[in-house]
């Protein structure tokens, strides 16, 4: 393998690793990808926002994300370390991570609401099919809206 081929292969593998790591909320790539998807920006555009090149984005993506469970208390310290290591804007990095975390938690909230509504719909269908006025065991006590209105 020539040096050039070797470099190409290393780059290919690192990009593949970055894609895989970006599926895991433990890694920064997860939040960078969510940010790109929500704000409709490409990785190259995100690199410009942060002030680095695309190659650095690959490395940044496999890093541990600041503020993940077990490291919550080190968010600022981690952002500081990463911005120094990669020569990127500290405030932009913190904003991007915080925004992405908000998107992710919103999506998770939406998924939970959807699943509660879905289980209520299934329970309603069970009762309808039973047709004898009996209450199905899977029936939630109240529909989600009622729970919400009581708060």
């Amino acid at each position, binding site marked *: 393998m020539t040096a050039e081929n070797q470099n190409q292969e290393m780059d290919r593998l690192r990009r593949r690793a970055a894609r895989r790591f970006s599926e895991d909320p433990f890694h920064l790539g997860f939040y960078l990808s969510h940010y790109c998807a929500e704000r409709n920006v490409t990785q190259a555009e995100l690199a410009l926002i942060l002030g680095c090149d695309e190659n650095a984005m690959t490395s940044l993506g496999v890093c*541990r994300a600041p503020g993940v469970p077990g490291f919550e208390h080190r968010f600022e310290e981690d952002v500081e370390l990463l911005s120094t290591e990669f020569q990127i804007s500290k405030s932009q990095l913190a904003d991007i991570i915080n925004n992405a975390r908000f998107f992710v938690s919103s999506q998770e909230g939406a998924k939970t609401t959807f699943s509660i509504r879905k289980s209520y719909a299934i329970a309603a269908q069970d009762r309808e099919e039973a047709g004898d006025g009996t209450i199905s065991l899977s029936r939630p006590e109240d529909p989600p809206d009622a729970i919400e209105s009581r708060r």
Partner: protein
Amino acid sequence: MKDDYAPKPTREREAQIYQMLVEGHPRAQDHLVRAFLFPMVQKLKSVYTHHSLHDIVDDVVIDTLCRFGKDVGRFEPARGSLWHYLLMDAHGDIRNLAKSATKRSGCMISLDDVELEPAERNESIETQAINAVWPAFLEYVPEGQHPESLIEALNTIRNAPELGAIFDLWQEGVRETDHYAKALGIQDWPSDKRKQKVKQVKDRLITRLRRLGEKLQ
């Protein structure tokens, strides 16, 4: 082939990365990937030579590094190098995948029907895995800490006629039939009989080691 490997990280580099991971440095995973991904993939692809396994090797190594970066506590530096620890972890996953595929397809995955280097043509994926795992095991478990039963069993194999003659060659990863034939004293035999005999003795050795490995697990 061996000269073609990317160099594995030095013990000093391993120690630096391990320390960063233990301290929770946010960039530690990046250093881990940079130092280990390419050499590990290259090493494993030299063992699992069939091209259809190459994507699996890429993914398994990436997953191994991803997992390890999150759970560094399961590695004990006193027991051996991080390189061998990670390599064995990845080997284990590839072997399991190969076994699952074997069960699913209902037949042994054989490399007979694929294009391989001549010396490896008759080796199953499992055999290739054992070939690669065994030296790594011996290196990971320092000599002084080998269980008594392992030393005894290895000595029995080393002292066995024929098996003992090829054990060191095999452990060093030698592949050429001629070297084995010379060790067995059959270098003057006709080529096909020579190959057949070498294969037979190697298979016996691998079977013995495999049984030994199963006992140790």
